[in-house]
């Protein structure tokens, strides 16, 4: 059973990582907590579901959901964060948390209205659900799909950030906002890019979760948002590799706790582990230097 639970944890951790990557990307660039990220994740699942219900195949629904969730993420940036950049840093941090909660509630309410508060599901047969035996483990096509998409997304993100001119600009803004601006980097373009990327990753995670766990509902992002906090604090706030490792560690920890401990203890174990890590490494597993926030100078 241990090997099977490790596999379950790895798959779950892959989704946590995908979710946390988008979350940490925004924090890394903007130094803000996007509390609407769970709602964007949910919207991705809904868009993917409606695309499949409209008759389009899943391979097309996934990118459609990513683009849709990316655009919704930009909408969150425009209504919740952009107007706050004129505030001083201390004010902006708190205000951005509150305003992103508000933006998230708007998206949640739309999701609730559209779904009539019902739990929806992808049509039966969208992905084969039968399990196959591999080295004594039961593996479903969905689990393989989730792992595959998660790995692909991480590789694409890494390529974009480290191998393209746009990625270099993003990293330049994250490293030193003022210097990047003096060198001609357009900050608004960077903000839109990062929010789009973040939303697209959340949208992909939403579709995968909706498929794998057979459930698309308007509150589906809430538990993931809390877990994403743990993953990125564990990995190091703003660190892309940290979010990846944090997500995987979290998934494994959750699976093993649920497998061998009473159900009520799972969350306690996760947070005890988090506090132990923070006692040893207060900046998380992957220490990230903290560039200046752009919010205090625009």
């Amino acid at each position, binding site marked *: 059973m241990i090997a099977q639970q490790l596999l379950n944890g790895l*798959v*779950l951790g892959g989704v946590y990582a995908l979710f946390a990557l988008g979350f940490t990307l925004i924090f890394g660039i903007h130094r803000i907590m996007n509390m609407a990220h769970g709602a964007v994740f949910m919207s991705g699942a809904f868009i993917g579901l409606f695309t499949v219900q409209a008759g389009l195949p899943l391979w097309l629904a996934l990118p459609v959901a990513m683009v849709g969730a990316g655009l919704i993420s930009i909408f969150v940036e425009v209504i919740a964060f952009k107007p706050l950049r004129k505030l001083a840093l201390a004010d902006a941090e708190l205000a951005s948390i509150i305003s992103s909660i508000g933006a998230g509630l708007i998206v949640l309410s739309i999701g609730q209205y559209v779904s009539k*508060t019902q*739990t929806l599901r992808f049509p039966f047969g969208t992905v084969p659900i039968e399990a196959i035996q591999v080295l004594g483990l039961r593996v479903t096509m969905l689990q393989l799909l989730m792992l595959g998409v998660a790995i692909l997304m991480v590789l694409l993100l890494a390529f974009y950030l480290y191998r393209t001119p746009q990625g270099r600009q993003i990293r330049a803004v994250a490293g030193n906002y003022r210097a990047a601006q003096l060198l001609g980097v357009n900050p608004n373009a960077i903000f839109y890019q990062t929010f789009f990327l973040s939303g697209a990753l959340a949208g992909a995670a939403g579709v995968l979760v909706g498929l794998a*766990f*057979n*459930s698309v509902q308007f509150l589906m992002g809430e538990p993931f948002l809390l877990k994403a906090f743990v993953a990125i604090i564990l990995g190091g706030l703003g660190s892309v590799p940290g979010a990846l490792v944090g997500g995987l560690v979290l998934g494994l920890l959750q699976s093993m706790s649920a497998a061998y401990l009473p159900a*009520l203890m799972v969350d306690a174990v996760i947070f005890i582990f988090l506090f132990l890590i923070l006692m040893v490494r207060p900046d998380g597993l992957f220490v990230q230097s903290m560039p200046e926030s752009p919010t205090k100078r625009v």
Partner: protein
Amino acid sequence: MNFPRKTLKYLAVMAGIALVAHGAQAADRKIVILQALTGGAAFVGVPASEGMKFAADELNAKNFLGGDKIVYEVSDSASARAQAMAAVTRYAADPNVLMILGPTTAVEAIPSAGVANDAKIPMKAMTNAIALLNAGPWGFISAQTPSITMPQLGDYAIDVAKVKACATIRFTDNEAYVDLERLFVEHTEKRGMKIVDRTGIKQVDSDFSTIATRIVASKPDCVVLFTLGPSAANLTIQLKQAGLPASVRILGQTGLSSPQLVSIGGAAVEGLVFNSDWTPGGNTPVGKAFAEAYKAKTGKDADNWAALGYSYMNVVAHAIKAASPNPTREKIRDALTKTKDVPVVVGTGKYSYIDRIPNYGSIFLMVKDGKFVVAPQ
């Protein structure tokens, strides 16, 4: 100013007529339907409130209160205890409100019962959490308590399904479901059943892969689900994906009685058995008439929650009638306490309170060909 004597007499007669007419005028009997229309319990609160409204409209159309009208105001508790408590406080302050029909879940209802008792307003909640009654005589539960239904489920598992080793999965964030599971385990263990695993999930969870693997490893011959329909559907699918043999019986309780069990669970939930308040389509003439009329009016099939809502409003209407012609909150509370054999569409068709504990019998349903049918009893 002086009026002629004749004019004064005329005015006095007119005033007398007006007074009598006013006294005989139909009165509004105001009920607040306080249900979870949003949030996690909305899938209960929305259909329940629709059933309640449908019942009130039907009763008014039939002049059930002899010309008086049931006037209802629908309010959203948002599945949140704070909002439910605030709503009870607000409506208790309105002297026109005779009683509150709600809130929906134990989480909202138990603390709200304290408020209702302080304000002395009858509150009939959807839940079956018996702890609500401890707050005082103004709080009522509506669904049958686990102390009645869980032994029935346990006996069904042992005597009809013939299972000997069960695993249980319950909601851990809803007191009512924790209570259901505990009573089931206590009853069945006394009768010699072995409980091989007891685990829990939260209402918003959707990933059950770890729990499913754990349950399968415990090799049960039955799994009993103390959750609502959508979660039960996903649990069943993921249990089967994790390798649960088809021979393992899956049982559950009233919470599973939702069309979403089948729409989400598909073929995986075939053969699943649960005890239920409501038989889809109705199992009595009154139930069948309700099912047809509800479908005709709303375009939807009545589910368990709509049927319960319809039944509870009927119980309330009978209490108001018993407390008439001048119903007060206190009279309605007393009438509710004495409720006996009120015709309803759930259970065996008669609703009674015995020491404020509801009793209306239950039946067992199973999923067959994507539909709920009466299970072998």
